[in-house]
């Protein structure tokens, strides 16, 4: 890996699943991830926010090659993972770990905490395992002598998630993919675990791909935030910019849906209507257009490409909300007429 090259470079990632009707007849193709590209620099946290069915978990798994994506490239530390197999893939993947949503579902109930944390060390045949396990448990805020001998069911949700994090750290990875890592925890425990993620990032200079449905939570831990809708990224940018000046109408809708903790703040009416379309038959053009208050004919005809409107702040929308470049200002009415004249 040369200097300045991103730690992870994902290009045009596509993942599809065939759904079968009765009798095993091909019923349709779920377009779970459709051409997603992003970079993660060393030491950076990229947050991906999206709702159920947006494809964010599939995206995480495709990055880890579990299962392999249908097409696209995942270049990690200079190597394209999609071209690797067997032991060569394993060698690279030790630097790429994952933490899942449900800690109890991802820890073997019959194993003791020590054995769970030691498993990756055994798999990669490293020495001094006992010492390393103590060190890892210590690192995530668990007492090796008190918690090491317990089974997962003897732990609270927060403690179990700490064990899962210790296991992910065992092989000193450079990137951890976190898929909704705190959403099953109560708010006070959630804050403790979020702070742990931040401390580990600073101490071990880790990078995270942090996936969650909660925009405020993602912003809290991320340097940059990407918003995902129905298998595609619609906006990417620095966290505070995406929150302060969202460019995509979907991002705006997500922000408006967050309950404010301030009852004096006027509640905005729901700006997004209807439901997520089927990923088997996604809308033509822009996938958000069926629920978008700004949708025009052009949105159905032409798929908006990701374009950078401000430094590091990109959007895939024909009629973005603000930061419209000169000549295209007060875009909507003008743009609508342009859209018609083009047809």
């Amino acid at each position, binding site marked *: 890996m040369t200097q300045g090259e991103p730690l992870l470079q994902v290009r045009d990632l596509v993942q599809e699943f065939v759904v079968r009707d009765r009798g095993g007849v091909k019923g349709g193709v779920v377009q779970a991830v459709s051409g997603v590209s992003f970079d993660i620099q060393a030491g950076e946290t990229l947050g991906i926010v999206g*709702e*159920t069915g947006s494809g964010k978990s599939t995206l995480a798994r495709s990055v880890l090659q579990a299962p392999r994506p249908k097409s696209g490239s995942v270049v990690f530390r200079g190597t394209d993972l999609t071209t690797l197999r067997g032991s060569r893939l394993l060698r690279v993947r030790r630097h790429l770990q994952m933490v899942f949503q449900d800690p109890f579902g991802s820890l073997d109930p019959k194993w003791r905490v020590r054995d769970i944390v030691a498993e990756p060390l055994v798999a990669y045949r490293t020495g001094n395992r006992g010492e390393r396990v103590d060190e890892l448990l210590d690192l995530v805020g668990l007492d090796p002598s008190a918690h090491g001998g317990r089974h997962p069911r003897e732990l*609270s949700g*927060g403690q179990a998630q700490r064990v899962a994090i210790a296991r992910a750290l065992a092989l000193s990875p450079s990137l951890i993919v976190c898929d909704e890592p705190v959403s099953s925890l*109560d*708010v*006070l*425990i*959630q*804050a*403790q675990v*979020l*702070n742990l993620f*931040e401390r580990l990032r600073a101490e071990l200079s880790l990078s995270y791909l942090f996936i969650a*449905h*909660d*925009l*405020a*939570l993602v*912003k*809290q*831990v*991320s*340097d940059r935030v990407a918003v995902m809708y129905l298998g595609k990224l619609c906006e990417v940018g620095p*966290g*505070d910019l995406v*929150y302060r000046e969202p460019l995509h109408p979907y991002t705006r*809708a*997500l*922000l*408006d*849906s*967050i*309950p*404010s*903790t*301030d*009852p*004096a*703040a006027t*509640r905005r*009416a*729901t700006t*997004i*209507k209807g*439901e*997520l379309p089927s990923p088997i038959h996604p809308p033509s053009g822009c996938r958000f257009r069926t629920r978008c208050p700004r949708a025009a004919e052009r949105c159905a005809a032409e798929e908006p490409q990701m374009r950078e409107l401000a430094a590091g702040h990109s959007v895939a929308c024909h009629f973005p909300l603000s930061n419209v470049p000169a000549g295209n200002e007060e875009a909507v009415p003008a743009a609508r007429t342009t859209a018609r004249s083009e047809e």
Partner: protein
Amino acid sequence: MTEALLEVQDLQVAFAGGGRELRAVDEVNYCVYAGQTLAIVGESGSGKTVSCRAVMGLLPHTAVVTGSALFQGQQLIGLSEDRMREHRGADLAMVFQDPTRSLNPTMRVGAQIAEAVRAHRPVGRTQAREEAVELLRLVHIPLPERRFLEYPHQLSGGMRQRVMIAIALAGRPRLLIADEATTALDVTTQAQIMELLLELQAELGMALMLISHDLGLAASYADEVIVMYAGRIVEQATARRLFSHVRMPYTQALFEAIPRLERPAHSPLPVIGGRPPDLAALPPGCSFAPRCRHAADDCRAAAPPLAEQEPGHRWACWHPVNGGAS
């Protein structure tokens, strides 16, 4: 807002098992008025759900429920199952977290709503069907005649929750209890369902109780908020007042731990250590004292009573935030 629709007094729920008594709910009292939205907020195991289920008579027989819950002057605690059933659905109804598990997967949703209609009123099949379609329309399900014939698996999570609300409304209840009704839903769907609940409340003049772990949701949608910890009410005020004049350090900790958009990225969240206490072995004194930043010797010696210390604001703390001054 003069006479309470539901008045809960000294509610206590205990579970006995393994030679230990576990007090899930203790000394809970509150009132709900017609047209009001009351939120009960707390973490897992704080007793928020158990206290409401006790009022609804939905707890297993192992639960020992004492105290009083008057619905329009009628005692609900200790009623026989048959008598309770007359109130359930007609006076108070409940919507649960997981609509998938609450709906019958082998029955069309329309039939399930019609069944609920007929359970409450002696109407014929045709009229029940018409009322069911009307209820689907009331909860804003598009093409209600077509959805009527669909099965739960054909609906999205948000739609299923709308069907659950339609079923809960079938008996025209005066009080609707939504127990984590939007927790399993996405944030945009959650906003849609909350708007629907508030709209229905205004339209039908119901009282609404929101049971939630989410203080943000409560502050944003409720008139009045009750905060529970380890089975007891620790603070109660109007949403507006609670937000601007939080008194109980536990409520403050809950507020601070919520990741907020206004916070700069990577700033450490203010956290408190520890976990909620074991309900079978509560510490003497204030049950929050072991985790509290303000805890002193008096907190560990005696439990502070829940009292109205400022007009319309109750809290249970010896050392409130800002010394209890505005």
